[in-house]
């Protein structure tokens, strides 16, 4: 796999949220504002890149790998939990409003399946450089997915887009033009499930179409 393929596979093809359906809790809970999604995305990026790097470093050398493998689960937990606590402390100190907004979901990154899944499925068997690229790609893919969910929910539910702090794009004129109110349900949990459901369906439909085209090409090639 090329470096480019390794990086971009997390965007759509193996997107942790939209294809593997991992990390659902934060994706549903914090996506009421794009600001929250960006903050959560950066936190996941920091933890995933560094956890992949550290896991790869402690399992890359055969001698160290031999010692780590029997206790790899506690080792991964210690590394991931430490990184999450670092993110938590930094966010609490330097981005306190965002920290309050994300609340419990920052410490819960410790048990985020994406982080642990990439450590177990990828970083433990690959070189540090490759693991970092994989982590960055997956985290960016996750971030883009939650930004997409936030965008739909915030526009439909609140009639605005909160990019960062006071950078708010007011779209109430659109609702005034249509003569309707924002649909508050999209800001609630049921709105999160409905939005994610439609996005998952769209992604699955696109993938089915792409696969069908590929299969048709293969069949054509075989016939020739």
């Amino acid at each position, binding site marked *: 796999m090329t470096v480019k393929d390794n990086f971009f596979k997390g965007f759509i093809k193996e997107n942790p949220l939209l294809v593997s359906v991992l990390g659902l809790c934060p994706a549903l809970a914090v996506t009421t504002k794009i600001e929250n999604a960006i903050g959560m995305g950066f936190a996941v990026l920091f933890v995933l890149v560094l956890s992949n790097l550290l896991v790869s470093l*402690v399992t890359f050398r055969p001698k*160290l790998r*031999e*010692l*780590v493998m*029997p*206790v790899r689960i*506690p*080792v991964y937990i*210690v*590394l991931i*939990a*430490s990184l999450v*606590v*670092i993110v938590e*402390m*930094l966010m*609490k*100190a*330097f981005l*306190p409003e965002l920290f309050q907004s994300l609340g419990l979901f920052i410490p819960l990154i410790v048990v985020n399946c994406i982080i642990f899944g990439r450590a177990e499925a990828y970083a433990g068997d690959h070189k540090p450089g490759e693991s970092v690229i994989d982590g960055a790609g997956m985290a960016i893919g996750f971030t883009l997915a939650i930004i997409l969910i936030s965008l739909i929910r915030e526009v439909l539910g609140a009639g605005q887009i909160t990019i960062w702090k006071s950078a708010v794009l007011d779209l109430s004129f659109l609702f005034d033009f249509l003569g309707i109110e924002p649909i508050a349900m999209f800001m609630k949990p049921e709105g999160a499930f409905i939005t994610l459901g439609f996005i998952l369906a769209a992604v699955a439909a696109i993938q089915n179409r792409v696969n069908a085209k590929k299969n048709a090409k293969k069949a054509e090639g075989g016939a020739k």
Partner: protein
Amino acid sequence: MKKALSSAVVLLVLGIICGAVLALVNTITSPVIAQYELDKKMEALEGFFADELTSNQKIADVFDVEEIEGTGGIKTIYLLEHKTEQTKSAVYSVSALGWKTNVDMMIAVDEDMTLRGYAFVTNGGTEAIGLTMIGATLNLADNISIQDTVQDYDSVGGVSAPVTGSGVKACFQLVALRVSQDLGGE
């Protein structure tokens, strides 16, 4: 056996390294976090003493503030002494069970035991009535004594939310019981 021990040592060493890194990050972030929390508390106190502060004055410029840890439902007590007039006031951060969750209030009392002000600091205790507590006002008489607040208020939720009302009442009750200990009585 030897291999298992070596694996345990690796885990221990990793744990120690992670602990050291966390300690280092904590030394950097803890003063910033403490300062932020202090600023937030002072901002909350400034709301009660706005009439004694000019626009660019902070609470610490006008009052000596002492923070005391409370007991029971009273979480923290801020004792304020005016630097020039020597008058005393106390602000209580207090919490009592409302509707399922706690009602969290800040209640300020002056030296003469009159209620200076109150504020709801969270939206706790509102699930049943769909109200937001922050910004809610009670129909209290001006210059009411803290002892009288327990009887003389309209509860936030009225008759439809007696438990929330009980939470608010309990907050005032806790302060009324404690205040003479901090301000010395009339």
